[in-house]
């Protein structure tokens, strides 16, 4: 039999009721089995070493969504994370509460901002038209597609690690936007355009940086960022084109269509809006400095030799078919 395994866990602690509340790290050494999850180790610490350690967990089977926290700096559902995938003997593994939310105590975060955002997207069906005699029906293929989003267990891993929420807590965020998609893409919902109109506003779909951190940390493969990208296209298709985000995408697209390559200078000008004088002025100093350094990209297109063939491919992709 192998010798006993001792794991070292460096756990963030915080007791709001202490005389001098502060965040600090406490090191624990705990005997573990090679099949332990991170949660198994934390529960063992709480039960056998330190009963004051607070954490949230319930099902231990990645269903309830209670135990998202940061493991070595990245959000994980700790019941789904094998200890040996994040820790090796001789090293220590760092456990923090989920990020982008206020900490209540130790590893327990306050999810109020999370649920507020979910409520903000009206997370319920709003059918319009005559009420059917039986239930509202949806084609099977649509439901199979939506099941990918409905897999979300609201654990908050994506919100914890969202790089936009880190700098702006008003951003609706990946979980609530994925939830919004669940209704926007449901053929039974009658408020698609209204929903997209709201999501198109500031703090909505266009504030995502496409950093893919939410895609990477989601324990259920919900792909929040992918859903946000689809909603951007849907919003533009519904006619919501008067945003820097929509102009940015259009400018990029048209540049590739014209020349095969990106025209960075036009992208900057067109995204701001050609008639947005304050916006243009705000960008000007960097543009002038780039010009002085001899590196302002040529505002004319950088055409590739086969631009005609590329344009044909792009035009073909625009034909309504399939």
């Amino acid at each position, binding site marked *: 039999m192998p010798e006993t395994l001792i794991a070292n866990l460096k756990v963030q602690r915080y007791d709001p009721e202490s005389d001098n509340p502060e965040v600090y790290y406490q090191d624990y050494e705990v005997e573990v089995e090679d099949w332990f999850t991170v949660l198994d180790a934390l529960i063992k610490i709480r039960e056998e070493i330190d009963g004051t350690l607070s954490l949230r967990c319930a099902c231990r089977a990645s269903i309830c969504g209670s135990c998202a926290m940061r493991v070595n700096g990245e959000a994980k559902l700790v019941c789904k994370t094998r200890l040996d995938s994040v820790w090796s003997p001789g090293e220590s593994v760092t456990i923090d509460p989920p990020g982008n939310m206020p900490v209540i105590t130790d590893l327990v975060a306050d999810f109020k901002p999370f649920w507020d955002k979910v409520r903000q997207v009206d997370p319920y069906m709003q059918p319009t038209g005559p009420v059917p005699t039986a239930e509202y029906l949806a084609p099977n293929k649509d439901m199979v597609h939506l099941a990918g989003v409905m897999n979300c267990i609201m654990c908050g891993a994506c919100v914890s690690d969202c790089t936009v929420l*880190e700098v702006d807590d008003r951003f609706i965020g990946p979980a609530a936007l994925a939830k919004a998609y669940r209704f926007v893409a449901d053929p039974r919902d009658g408020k698609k355009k209204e929903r997209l109109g709201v999501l198109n506003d500031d703090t909505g779909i*266009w*504030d995502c*940086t496409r950093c893919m951190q939410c895609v990477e940390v989601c324990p259920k493969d919900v792909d929040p960022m992918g859903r946000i990208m689809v909603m951007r296209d849907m919003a533009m298709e519904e006619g919501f084109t008067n945003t820097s985000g929509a102009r940015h*995408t259009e400018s*990029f697209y048209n540049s590739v269509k014209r020349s095969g390559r*990106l025209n960075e200078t036009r992208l900057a000008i067109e995204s701001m809006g050609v008639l947005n004088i304050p916006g243009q002025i705000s960008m000007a100093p960097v543009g002038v400095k780039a010009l002085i350094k001899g*590196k302002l990209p040529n505002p004319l297109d950088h055409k590739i030799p086969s631009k005609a063939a590329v344009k044909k491919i792009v035009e073909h992709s625009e034909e309504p078919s399939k």
Partner: protein
Amino acid sequence: MKYAFWPGCVALGGTPELYQSTKLVLNKLGIEVEELTNATCTGAGVLQEKNKKLGDTLNVRTFAQAEQMGLPIMTICSTCQGTMAQAQLAVINDDGYLAEINADLADEDLEYHGNTVTKHLLWILVEEYGLENLKKHFVRDLSGLKFAPFYGCYLIRPSDALGFAEVPERETSLERVIESTGAEVVDFKGARACCGLPILFINQNNSLKMVATHTGTAKDLGADAMVTPCPLCHLNLDGYQGKAAQKNRASAIDLPILHLPQMLGLAMGFTPKELGMNKHMVSTNRLRDHVEALAAPAQA
């Protein structure tokens, strides 16, 4: 070693010093490249917002060109690398999808069979060229300098498309290459964060907060420069650092942002000017003076 070279739109546009320094470094390393002058923009995830299949088609078109040349592709842009890796993953196990895309390429007599390997220069150095071989070309010891790595999102996420499970060393490749020059790696959380460029023209406040946070944190930890394999990150971290500091910090940050080949070039003995460091928006003068004061390179 020979590669079909895809510099990407930004190395050919907003960061000409990346192109310039890459060419010098590759030449020194004896790595041959043939440029894909007829390849298109990868779409950078932006084109894909509007039409993912079109993005995949344009990238497959580039893969097919390289396949015809019988060469693997070298990229020097995290965003290109990641976008191309995602396109490759989308077609490689879906023959029907690949056939649809190939139909669109027939006019140019192109057909992709799935065989093109696309790697960022950073990965090529670690996985193929080898750091020991690389070090043989270093004539300046950069120890004493502290460099903060900054990967660029698309070179680390999504990990499945980037093959991290198969090639785990990719996850820490930038730190290892920095160490190979003798410089010390500044260990900071921002190394794998977002630079904010994709929303620069959409939500400038948020974008600049990201720039200020990452460059400011690295600077506070003692970094002499930041090193990135992504020219898009460079555009924001270098170009907008001054404005980001003004808006978000009490004082200037003034952290030079080096392209990966510029750091290699410094270790190889090239002058900062040869590497285009005079073209940066954030002054590189202090770093230049430091490097030039080091023992004179054995050859130039």
